[in-house]
């Protein structure tokens, strides 16, 4: 609970600095975002991408307006590429269907377990993974799953995997967090989770959790577990793309501090302590 309250203060702080400027005549910065996907974004503006969007808006002297759309198959097609909004705050660097900015953070998949279990699993090659009940995130599109699923199945670890879709139950306030709950209430022994989700919910967990970056960072089959995250714009919006790149460079310290306040595990910057 201690973490939750400090987070709330951070949220208020940013809202104060980059808050409403509705009296301005500037055209709004139209952001495409998921209304229910903490820690990334939500309709109440509580996600780190909401705060980064406010920061970009302030830099451009434009008020932020949102096009809300669940970030699923068709998200880019129905929002950015349909012209209903102009900026996606978080996407994988190099993603084909949009132009991606310079990356602004690099995170990793992590092992999450209850601290009281003292598992300290650090590698996909840890023999204990053959016996532990392992929670994984499932994408379920395009015939692929998240890289940890492939890392495990490539090692013959299949029967003890428990799948959690990345979509979750969208009726809940943060649908993707069920995999973290499953670690807390011992439905699984350990889970392999994308860093920002794990870091954020580990901070507010009533039960202390260990969050450990996976190793290796890339499997021999060239399957990476660390990813650069960038912003996305339409390919034809070249001038806007350059503006975004320059803001990311200029505001790097502020962006870093937003990410740190949400507990995003980083592999591109040195982080104080662990979790």
């Amino acid at each position, binding site marked *: 609970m201690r973490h939750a309250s400090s987070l709330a203060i951070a949220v208020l702080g940013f809202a104060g600095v980059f808050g409403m400027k509705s009296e301005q005549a500037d055209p709004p910065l139209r952001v495409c975002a998921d209304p229910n996907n903490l820690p990334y974004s939500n309709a109440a503006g509580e996600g780190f991408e909401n705060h980064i969007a406010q920061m970009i808006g302030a830099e451009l002297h434009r008020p932020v307006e949102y096009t809300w759309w669940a970030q699923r198959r068709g998200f880019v097609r129905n929002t950015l590429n349909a012209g209903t909004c102009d900026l996606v705050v978080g996407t994988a660097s190099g993603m*084909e269907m949009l132009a991606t900015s310079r990356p602004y953070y690099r995170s990793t998949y992590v092992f999450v377990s209850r601290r009281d279990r003292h598992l300290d699993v650090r590698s996909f090659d840890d023999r204990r993974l053959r016996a532990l009940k392992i929670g994984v995130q499932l994408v379920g599109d395009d015939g692929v799953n998240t890289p940890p699923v492939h890392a495990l199945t490539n090692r013959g670890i299949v029967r003890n995997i428990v799948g959690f879709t990345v979509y979750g139950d969208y009726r809940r306030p943060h649908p993707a967090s069920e995999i973290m709950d499953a670690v807390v209430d011992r439905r699984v022994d350990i889970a392999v989770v994308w860093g920002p989700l794990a870091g954020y919910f580990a901070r507010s967990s009533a039960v202390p959790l260990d969050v450990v970056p996976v190793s290796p960072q890339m499997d021999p089959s060239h399957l990476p577990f660390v990813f650069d995250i960038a912003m996305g714009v339409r390919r034809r919006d070249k001038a806007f793309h350059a503006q975004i790149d320059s803001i990311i460079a200029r505001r790097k310290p502020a962006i870093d501090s937003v990410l740190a306040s949400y507990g995003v595990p980083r592999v591109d910057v040195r982080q104080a302590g662990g979790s």
Partner: protein
Amino acid sequence: MSLRRFVTIGLAASTVSCKSEPKTPAVVLSARTGGTAASVDTTVNDDGQWVRPAKDYASTRFSGLSEINTGNVKSLRVVATFSTGVVRGHEAAPVVAGNTMYIVTPYPNTVYALDLTKPGLPAKWKYDPKPEAASQGVACCDVVNRGAVFDQGKLFFNTLDDHTIALDVATGKPVWDTKLGDINTGETITMAPLVVKGKVLVGNSGGEMGVRGWLKALDEGSGKVVWTAYATGPDSSILIGPEFKPFYASDRGKDLGVSSWPSDMWKIGGGTMWGWIAYDSTLDLIYHGTANPGPWNNDVRPGDNKWTSAIFARRPETGAAVWAYQLTPHDSHDYDGINEQILIDLPINGQTRKVLVRPDRNGYMYVMDRATGEILSAEAYGTVNSSSGVDLKTGLLRVNTDKIPSVGKVVRDICPAAPGAKDWQPSAYSPRTGLLYVPRQNLCMDEEGLSANYIAGTPYVGMNVKMHAGPGGNRGVFQAWNPATGREAWSIKEDLPVWSGALVTAGDVAFYGTMEGWFKAVDARTGTLLWQFKTGSGIIGQPISYRGPDGHQYIAVLSGVGGWAGAILAGVVDPRDSSTALGFVNAMRDLPDKTTKGGMLYVFSL
């Protein structure tokens, strides 16, 4: 102003009592050649009407009307048009009951009743169910709807946000409205319901989202759910009980819906039921398919993954399964098993057999004994290399392991591609010619390379799925198939996938539409093109025929490109993104040069 709010709009369920209409007279189809349409539909074989998308319970899409025939079809002309005001993919069949035509649009699922007695077919009423806007974001492949069904004075249809609604056709007001699922779990409904023995049968969509497939029966009068049959899980939830006798050993055993999955993965196992249902009143069995297993990737779910990509025969009153056959165990290619079942009586080796014909996505034309589930033949009707045939002794698909996709592995020329040799677009069967008219695609796919992808805040390495034309270079085929011999009679190559339904008439004319927008009439015996008309948009709807109040024969079809194949237009996909819409876009880059979107009803007569 582009702010889109997730609006939850409650639908007022009114309690208006239904008015019953006089039963329509039964007409018995006569066989001239080949097989006959199964004599299973005694209530509505009136060729004046077309009360359900498949025309009859046997799903023949055969009209006994012959005023329009091979000799005069060249004089067919447009007599009325009606804009639906919706620009997404129009997959529905119009339905005709009495002197009214009913159409349901893609999302927002508006229903129109058009008066056939007046010139220009003016709307009598319109009903807007106001589905949740957010349902568009969770629908897998365009926000389509495959049609409504008329029965006993009511019109039944499904909404993308999981409602089944019964409208009083006299007033256009809802009699009942039942919410069957929640879009927030990834569940949507796109299929056309079927009404059998006082039950409205409805299945869900959304296997890609980890939805567990089900078919539900709703009481026709009250909308209350009478039974639910899941595709995965324990036998009790699948409604497998003492009556269940599958033909093949591989489909026998206790709780296979659990044991053929690792750990609890059946709970998110897919097997949704967004396709077609047929009914045989003599055997008292309904037939339906189940979709692909989810999540898609096959490494993570060793086992047969029952009962995904399967066909079920069930009792309509209880849902009890009588037999089941898994067409594609452990599907690795997205070969949903939801295509239509055509019920016909067919001469095979000197005997008349009651069969079910299933042109499956995996590329085989299954001819099965519909009482037992025995496969009588299963010939490839398109290019297939993902398997090398079906073993008729064991019922097992002989899978070609070289063509199973795996991350980091490049696999080229997997045939058929994910949409299969044929997708949802339904075939028609003429008892006069003994031929099945199969609208389909001719696509193969490469699975190659690795590209960064990102969904729901989670990065992963995407498989680059690229579909392309199969052998011959044409992407579509309209094919006449003889189910008695297991051979093609003739076929017409089409440049783009044929994503529309088929219609065949007693005038020996077969109708279909192309994604360029051509509506075509061909000689049902030879495939010779007799007439064509260019509609405003690509056609992916289901053509129908009916007798108008003036006693003359009419043909109707919805034009309006979209669907999975048309996602490039309907959803404004960037054609440079070859792997979007699950790789379909690569095969459809030129579609925007050939048609534009927009929903419009066309009605034709001589």
